[in-house]
């Protein structure tokens, strides 16, 4: 397999403006299949905007984003194709409160992938077992704890059998005692060979499973490298300063 075939996400000189505010200033990133990428940086650095541009929840104005061979533009079918292959987990879970856990998970496979109800429900039960909450299948999201809800959200994204998983600060809205149960699921997923982009400040997670880390600040990638390099020998002052702030407590 050649080098180019291995690339699943390719971002070149990508820019994003909100009105006059230049949120992302020329981002370049190549992600290979099965890579686990951790993105971190201060709030307002553009890291969430960046990850949300990968499945076009945010529109970029300049540059190029190619996901699984599809160039993201204004073509709705291209966008929907990319979204089918890309699972996303949100900070606020965004489960559908009017549907049971099971209904949350099977909705997209049935409506988008056109699976039969039976196939979708069998897959859903397997996923719920994988994230450790098969007994909650017929409850409503409002009846679950935050950690359980986020695990349902992961199962819901996985049900579409995506090639890439995007995590936008998946543990930031959780109580401390629930963070671990979600991280455990993510670690297991990373080790199973899923391509993952994770925006997070959970540095233990990064050290354990990340292949590469990217430090974002003020709309730019300040520094990138392996976790060892970033934690033990960062090149940039800004990276050092930020790491010392989030690791000090």
């Amino acid at each position, binding site marked *: 397999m050649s080098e180019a075939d291995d690339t699943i996400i390719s971002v070149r000189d990508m820019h994003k403006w909100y009105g006059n505010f230049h949120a992302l200033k020329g981002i370049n990133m190549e992600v290979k299949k099965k890579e686990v990428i951790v993105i971190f940086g201060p709030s307002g650095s553009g890291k969430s905007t960046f990850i949300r541009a990968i499945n076009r*929840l945010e529109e970029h104005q300049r540059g190029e984003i190619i996901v699984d061979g599809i160039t993201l533009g204004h073509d*709705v079918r291209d966008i929907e194709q990319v*979204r089918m292959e890309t*699972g996303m987990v*949100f900070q606020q879970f*965004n489960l559908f409160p009017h549907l049971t856990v099971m209904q949350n998970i099977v909705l*997209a496979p049935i*409506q988008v992938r056109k699976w039969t109800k039976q196939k979708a429900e069998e897959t859903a039960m397997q996923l719920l077992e994988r994230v450790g909450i098969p007994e909650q299948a017929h409850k409503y*999201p409002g009846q679950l704890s935050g950690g359980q809800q986020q695990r349902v959200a992961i199962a819901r994204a996985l049900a579409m059998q995506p090639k890439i998983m995007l995590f936008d600060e998946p543990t930031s809205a959780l109580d401390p005692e629930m963070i671990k149960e979600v991280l455990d699921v993510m670690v297991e997923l990373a080790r199973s060979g899923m391509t993952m982009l994770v925006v997070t400040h959970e540095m233990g997670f990064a050290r354990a499973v990340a292949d590469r880390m990217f430090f974002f600040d003020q709309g730019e990638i300040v520094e990138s490298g392996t976790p060892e390099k970033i934690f033990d020998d960062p090149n940039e002052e800004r990276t050092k300063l930020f790491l010392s702030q989030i690791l000090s407590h």
Partner: protein
Amino acid sequence: MDSTLPPLTERSSILRWMRQNLFGSWLDTLLTLLGSLIVYWALKGFLTWALTVAEWEVVSANLRLLIIGQYPLAQAWRLWMGLGFLIFLSGNSLGIWARDSKFYAALLLAPALLAALPFGEEPRKWLIALTLTGLIGWGLGRARPEVLKRSVITGWVIALPIFILLTNGLSESEIGFMPVVKTNLWGGLLLTFLLTAVGILFSFPLGVLLALGRRSQLPVVRLASVAYIELVRGVPLITILFMAQLMLPLFLPDNLTLDRVLRAMVGVTLFSAAYLAENVRGGLQAISHGQYEAGYALGLSGAQTMAFIILPQALRLIIPILVGQFIAVFKDTALVAIVGLFDLVGIAKTVLAQPDFLGLQREVYVFVSLIYWVLSYGMSYLSQRLEESLGVGKR
């Protein structure tokens, strides 16, 4: 030593309650006496009138007019059959979805209670038959819920078309099976019911579409929706009804004449849709952006996200407002009396024009009001139960 005291047990008796709540202090006592005087004074006037002065013969003699207008008596069986179908479906539904509620089952006895009113021999038999139909439907629904669910839903979908078909008739000739009854003979509660049912049923989807149109990305769709909503909300219903009756024929080709009742139905529907659109828009705005994003991120299209995720939540939120709107439609249909249709209010006016019953407005309008109130309150009550069973505000 165990120092915990047993909880205070309230010995509730009416007298005790009265002493606590009505005569707790001298001020309470004063207010209670004052309040009682006002209630007595108000009720005394009404009750004295209702029980001694009022001539209720005007209502009992014209009961049929008030209920079905000039609808020919020989064809009234069709209305009974239509009503029977609705009651059978209601019984079925209650048996399936409210199987444990004795209260709802008791509601099915309502036709039997109505039989106590001075309807005459024939209607009394029908009312008893309706009661039995409802109870049989209830029993079947309870016995075979899973089997019947689908057919009951289908039944509700076709219920109004069937009712209208029965009311209208099939055969053009006078002597054929179910001859057509012209709409100028439809009247009374029957017409009010049909105007309301059609108005609610058609304005609902139209209102949802207008609400979605108002939020559309496409400028033409958005502008058209806004223009429609604001135009219709800017004029009174009565002007729309007048336009439908008087102006519409001017725009239509000569050979095309729309039925007067149909025109009123269209007017009520178009009017109500504009208000519904704004209610639905309010519901849509209450749904967080994260819900859309979650749908899109899963690969659902915009339409699928709207249909499966956003609308179900938005509509559930606005059930109380929707029912308020439906009740308003029900009462607003009374305005068709002004453009010459004989709905409940229109027929009341003709009853009062009879030489025998001059000057009996109070009796007739009290009776008509009672009908409106019973049905409006029924809708309101059912919507509250619906909210409870959907868990609105809980999840």
